[in-house]
């Protein structure tokens, strides 16, 4: 069933080419083709999820095609529990974003939808790549379409925002490129051959001397922390969000930021475990500072999009805190929080888009009392706000709770202070989100421009409904989602604890073997296994 994952990656690319071939006058066809192919991608992603066996450790649905032999670069893709959730999130948000562009995007539609589909392929590629070269290719490829989406279809100050977005993220990722190459060269000198194969690098990683791990850790972490964005590297985010079109904001907040947190889990924790122990408390503190700072700044905003952008800084702080607690609870919380933030912030941006479409302003002061004019919309916005604020019973609660629990119980951080300060963020979130809701929905209808606003259209309800369903699903019954990533999280934490403390309490299920072992298969299996790595100081 490996083709399912390949299909999830290939369908949006095919869509990109298809849209390029449609004449630009046929806007309707361009839109429908884009929507159809993004839905097809979602079907493929759901197929991947159904075929994914959460009881099996390691990567599944792996495809490995040789690409550049000289550097052992391959088209290596696969999913584990950690990446699968994000693949699903990406595939789900893209059709919604395309629907959200249906009305607002009124010029150069052909380029727009082509860029959206290219963006989807690149984002999916980031999550499924099992090869550092391939990962980097997709990582950078994400920049190009997003740059154009902000720069062409954005607001008044779009050129500045697009450039800032591009240069900020490029600064980080180019240093990561040096580190990626450096790792390959190290493998050549110490582990028998240049490689970009993630599996081989992962085996080699714990043998890296600590002083090398330190700078490699930062070369990767800088790139990811800019993307997250972690305080104090977050300044590009409000600009990008304010200027991006609604769908761009949805994707930016929903998926792009998760590339950073995903990278921290996949590359920093996996490849540089010893350095991670050393810097865990620093990054966790930055996460905590981000939680509080983001919340406080969000409280002071008058522009709705800026408010949500800073709330992202705050919410992503929880994720970073969860990741660097390096506990199963914290990591699981971080993963589910990545999905939750994508859903609830995506919905908040959609809601702002609804208001912006009607009034062409995002100033909080321009609105007020809309609950009487747009009652249905008020319900959807309430759900989005409550989900984002982490109300128990809705999705946001699960992730924040687990992240904080992990931080409190972490043997690596060994302090309650992180969770103690971090929990302030939950309270502040309630404060600024309810203020947002209050300012727009309640009170008198003071502005005559708001008297005759249309309530949500059918098209808009279609965008909201899948998100609302997931709010309740994850909030009330998070089991299926948590189980998907459970084994992967456990395996990672067990490895980290083993390396740090020499022992671990986590019991991993043994890989299931077929009841009757056929000698033929066993032989094949043995032949397929790689020779063990030589010790660190073995002669070259």
């Amino acid at each position, binding site marked *: 069933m490996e083709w399912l994952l390949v299909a999830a990656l290939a369908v949006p690319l095919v869509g990109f080419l298809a849209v390029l071939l449609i004449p630009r006058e046929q806007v309707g066809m361009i839109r429908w083709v884009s929507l159809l192919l993004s839905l097809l991608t979602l079907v493929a992603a759901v197929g991947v999820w159904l075929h994914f066996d959460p009881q099996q450790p390691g990567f599944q649905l792996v495809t490995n095609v040789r690409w550049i032999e000289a550097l052992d670069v391959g088209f290596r893709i696969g999913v584990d529990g950690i990446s699968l959730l994000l693949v699903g999130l990406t595939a789900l948000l893209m059709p919604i974003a395309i629907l959200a562009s249906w009305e607002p995007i009124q010029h150069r539609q052909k380029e727009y939808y082509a860029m959206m589909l290219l963006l989807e392929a690149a984002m999916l590629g980031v999550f499924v790549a099992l090869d550092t070269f391939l990962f980097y290719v997709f990582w950078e490829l994400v920049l*190009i379409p997003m740059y154009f989406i902000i720069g062409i279809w954005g607001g008044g100050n779009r050129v500045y925002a697009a450039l800032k977005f591009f240069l900020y993220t490029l600064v980080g990722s180019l240093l990561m490129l040096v580190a990626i190459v450096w790792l390959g060269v190290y493998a050549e000198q110490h582990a028998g051959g240049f490689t970009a194969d993630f599996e081989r690098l992962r085996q080699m990683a714990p043998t890296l001397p600590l002083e090398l791990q330190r700078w490699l850790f930062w070369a990767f972490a800088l790139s990811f922390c800019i993307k997250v964005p972690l305080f104090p590297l977050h300044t590009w985010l409000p600009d990008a969000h304010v200027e991006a079109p609604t769908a761009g904001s949805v994707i930016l907040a929903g998926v792009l930021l998760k590339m950073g947190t995903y990278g921290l889990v996949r590359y920093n924790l996996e490849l540089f475990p010893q350095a991670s122990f050393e810097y865990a408390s620093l990054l966790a503190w930055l996460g905590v500072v981000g939680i509080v700072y983001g919340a406080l700044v969000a409280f002071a905003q008058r522009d709705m999009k800026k408010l949500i952008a800073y709330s992202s800084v705050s919410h992503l702080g929880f994720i970073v805190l969860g990741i660097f607690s390096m506990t199963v609870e914290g990591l699981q919380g971080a993963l589910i929080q990545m999905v939750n933030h994508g859903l609830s912030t995506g919905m908040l941006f959609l809601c702002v888009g609804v208001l912006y479409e009607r009034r062409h302003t995002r100033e909080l002061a321009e609105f007020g009392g809309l609950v009487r004019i747009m009652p249905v919309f008020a319900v959807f916005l309430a759900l989005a706000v409550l989900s984002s604020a982490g109300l128990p019973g809705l999705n946001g609660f699960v992730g924040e709770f687990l992240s904080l629990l992990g931080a409190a119980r972490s043997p690596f951080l060994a302090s309650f202070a992180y969770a103690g300060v971090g929990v302030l963020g939950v309270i502040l979130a309630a404060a600024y989100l309810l203020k947002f809701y209050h300012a727009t929905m309640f009170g008198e209808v003071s502005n005559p421009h708001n008297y005759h606003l249309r309530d949500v259209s059918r098209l808009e309800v279609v965008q909201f409904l899948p998100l609302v369903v997931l709010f309740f699903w994850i909030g009330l019954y998070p089991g299926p989602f948590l189980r998907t990533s459970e084994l992967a999280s456990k395996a990672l934490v067990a490895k980290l604890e083993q390396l740090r403390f020499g022992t671990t309490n986590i019991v991993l299920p043994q890989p299931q073997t077929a009841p009757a072992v056929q000698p033929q298969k066993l032989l094949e299996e043995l032949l397929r296994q790689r020779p063990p790595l030589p010790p660190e100081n073995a002669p070259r």
Partner: protein
Amino acid sequence: MSAVQEILAIAPVVLIGLLATAVMVVDALIRQSARLSFWLSVVGLLGVAAAAVWTLPASGTVLSGMLSSGGMAALFDIVFAAAGVLTLLAARPYLEREGREYDEFYALLLFALAGAIILAHAAHLVVFFLGIELLSVSFYVLAGYFRTQPRSVEAALKYFLLGAFATGFLLYGIAMVYGSTGAMGYESVAARLQRGSPLPMLLGIGVGLLLVGIGFKIAVVPFHQWVPDVYQGAPTVVTAFMSTVGKAAVVVALVPIFEALRPALDWKLQSAVAVLSAATILLGNVLAVVQRNLKRMLAYSSIAHAGYLLMGVVAQSERGWAGMLFYAVAYVFMQMGAFVVVALVEQENEHRLELNDYAGLSRQHPALAAMMAVFLFSLTGLPPFAGFFGKYFLFTAAIEAGYTWLAVVAVLGTMVSAYFYLGVLVAMYFREPAAPIAIQTGTAKATLWLSTAAVLLLGLFPMTLLGLLQRFL
């Protein structure tokens, strides 16, 4: 090998020489022959490429070790012939528009190509010198091809004076290498050096002077001052041609020289080259940022690209050479493409070259703007385009050789370069057009499509070219 076999083995060199001469003779004998010369040149270059493909498998040296045949030389014959055809296709509409389609242009272009091809085949310092001179002299004349325009004449004169100066360095270097080793053929130089150089001091100075001369030709800081004025003053298609083929030809000729001189190269020289490379990358990119004229901006960026190429010389490993040559080929296509777009947008008499003139290009000429975007992204070094893979390979080589700091400097330079390349994209895509831009693409369209295809294919399937390079190194 018999004489005939030897001649056949270097068929591309012979053919390009004959072709250039034939076009010159046609020009002298037939009136109004521009069209004939054009087609003769295109078909002839395709013939050269075919001959190169035919000689590709058997590599060796011929004519008592003066010229190498087949292998790497033949591979670059193909690259140069292709670049020649691309330039011809782009030059025709450009010259027609400027009202200056004389057939000397085609003859000069072919002589320059002959120089490049001789450089690719050089296995002897004298042949190397011959190639570089043939290439340079043709360039001097081509730079001043618009002889009624002061700027073009100024470019030619500047180029000639400084180039002649550089030639002096080069000759001095060759003389000193000969003085210390008593040989000029690469093989015999290498053989002598294996036994230890009798005059290490003289050899060191010789290698240094050679490096200065070569640095001049490929525009390495601090020998780069001529580049912006010359590239800006020369006709745009000529700039496209000399900034690509000129650089690639010297780079490919440099590999066997440095391989032969390897015993004489120590870490000091390596570090010196590394410093030059870093300075070239930083200075080229930083100076490009403040340019508003696109030709001048690309000129500065071409200086920076010389710095990236030098990373291969720093590494001095097989991977370094392969990376450098790969990057050179990628550079030929992406830089050529970018300059051809500039040539098309340009109007008579050097108008419409400013960044502001590109405002809204994507609205009126979406395909042209999209191709420019591909070239610029590739020049920046973004995947999945050819420039990215070339950089990746060069970084690998530099890091492997222990020059991680150089790779870091190179990525810092890349960040700076992203800023000014994006500036062009901002103008093309994010700004509204001021006035309609009329563009006659003509045959230049083929140049652009072929260059785009090359940039994409080299980026997505780098292994084909890389495999060939590694086989022939």
